[in-house]
């Protein structure tokens, strides 16, 4: 009983003497985050690695060691490599277009004009919509009969045009790309607009007085100045495009056939429709491995962590 007040007294003393950083404190406060990050960052990796060396499917819970069978199968799996190709095609087309349109739009709205803020606020709306909703919206817009897009095309063509946007092979990619560009160009636009506004005006004005043209000023002064921000925007969008799932799920579900199946869609099909547990784990491990390397390389290269 007599210890209690003394213990209390001691604690106030020790409390007063914590001017130096308390070394346990710094670890206590990161502990919950580290635990949760390991749950989604490390556990799936280890689990995928273990299961990918087994032969588990929905019907057969076979945990015997299968060696590299699943990984060798990755190389023979044409559908997997096609899905990677589809993903890369979407990324390689959408990313530069979003960047260029975003940059052009940022230049358009860079100078003051009445109502500028209202325009900007409205134009960025697509970026905050859920990608699933964006896909659903464009599905309604692209409808061959009741959608407004075919109607407008018919007006322009002067006769009735019926385009089956999410069925016709040569139209599905344009449909996906239009939706993707619609949703994410504002993202690029907003970030680049902020970056452009931060460019030192005295530099560009001095160059203008010296008779330098728009493009010369852009490449020599503006681009180097906005590059750090632009690089991060490209990284974020590039990674997101590689993960693309929601929009395609809503627009085409990977169809017609497997024509628009991306890596994420294919992995989903293998895991949750075909129940190829071990093989899906191998794919997941491949994706995590590839992405980790690219992402960590890019982050370090761009100095993003500093």
């Amino acid at each position: 009983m007599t210890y209690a007040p003394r213990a209390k007294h001691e604690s106030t003393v020790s409390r007063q003497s914590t001017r130096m950083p308390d070394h346990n404190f710094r670890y206590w406060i990161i502990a919950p985050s580290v635990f949760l990050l390991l749950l989604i960052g490390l556990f799936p990796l280890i689990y995928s690695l273990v299961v990918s060396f087994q032969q588990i499917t929905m019907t057969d819970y076979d945990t015997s060691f299968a060696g590299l069978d699943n990984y060798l199968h990755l190389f023979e799996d044409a559908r997997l490599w096609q899905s990677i190709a589809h993903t890369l095609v979407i990324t390689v087309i959408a990313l530069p277009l979003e960047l260029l349109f975003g940059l052009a739009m940022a230049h358009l709205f860079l100078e003051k004009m009445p109502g500028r803020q209202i325009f900007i606020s409205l134009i960025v709306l697509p970026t905050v919509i859920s990608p699933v909703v964006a896909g659903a919206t464009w599905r309604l817009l692209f409808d061959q009969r009741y959608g407004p897009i075919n109607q407008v095309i018919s007006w322009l063509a002067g006769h009735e045009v019926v385009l089956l946007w999410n069925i016709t092979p040569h139209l599905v990619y344009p449909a996906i790309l239009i939706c993707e560009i619609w949703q994410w160009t504002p993202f690029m636009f907003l970030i680049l607009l902020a970056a452009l506004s931060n460019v030192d005006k005295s530099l560009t004005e001095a160059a203008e007085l010296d008779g330098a043209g728009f493009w010369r000023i852009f490449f020599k002064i503006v681009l180097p100045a906005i590059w750090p921000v632009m690089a991060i925007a490209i990284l974020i969008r590039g990674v997101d495009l590689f993960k693309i799932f929601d929009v395609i799920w809503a627009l085409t579900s990977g169809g017609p056939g497997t024509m628009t199946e991306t890596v994420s869609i294919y992995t989903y099909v293998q895991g949750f429709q075909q129940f190829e547990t071990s093989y899906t784990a191998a794919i997941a491990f491949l994706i995590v491995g590839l992405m980790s390397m690219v992402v960590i390389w890019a982050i370090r290269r761009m100095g993003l962590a500093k």
Partner: protein
Amino acid sequence: MALNRRLNLFGRYILACCLLVFFVFPIYWLFIISFKTPDEIFHFPPVWYPKNIQFANFSVLFKDGDAISVLNSLILAGTSTVIAMVFGTMCAYSLVRFKTGGENFAVWVISQRLMPPIAIIFPIFLLYVYLGWVDTYGGLIILYTAFNLPYVIWMMRGYIEDIPLELEESALVDGCSRWRVLWKVVFPMARTGLFATAVFTFVFAWNEFIFALVLTRTEVVTYTVQVTHYFGGQSNFWAKIAAMSALGTVPVFITVSLLQRFLVRGISMGAVKG
């Protein structure tokens, strides 16, 4: 020169209006379908604006109980945001003030954010089946919290760096414990950043689809999954798709428009400050 500039301004307005139509018309179309009658939705040629605004499409969602999915989204996104903000801010504070883990830890944290969900969802799904966490609030809240933590840590790291060190030091000199400093000095000082980050975290969780698609069945279906339930072969429930999407999108528009000032910093992961 003056004429030239005026024409230039005129030209810029024309371009700006074209862009406005391209970016806003799809949203207009989505919302307008939710107010149309079935006759107007399935009318050829398309009806560009409804004769009467009517809310039957929305009341059906409430009558059938589908609107509960918006409440589910609210519970999942709201709870996970609060937890992620508390844990993430603590972690960010440790990263900033004590350089815990150094740059490698920071890189690892942000690389988690960039990880494709599909690669981690499969093992997580099997784990959740084993634990009986599929289709429960708790399971999804943990996952959303974990998934949003890297973003919170990353953003709060930037905001905490902006807090002057002197305040914390004087609080320590006055005899505050480290926990008290964190709670009484750091959290209040970073409140603007906390608020902005929380809103974005909430929107990310609110808009999330793939985790919810895999891990929900009937009990905790979110509005994004509910929207896709109306897709099906030839008979798309257009009115329901539009009304449900509108229900889920309006809150996002409202919150984001209140936060214009933080929008760039929020979506660029802190690359642009201001």
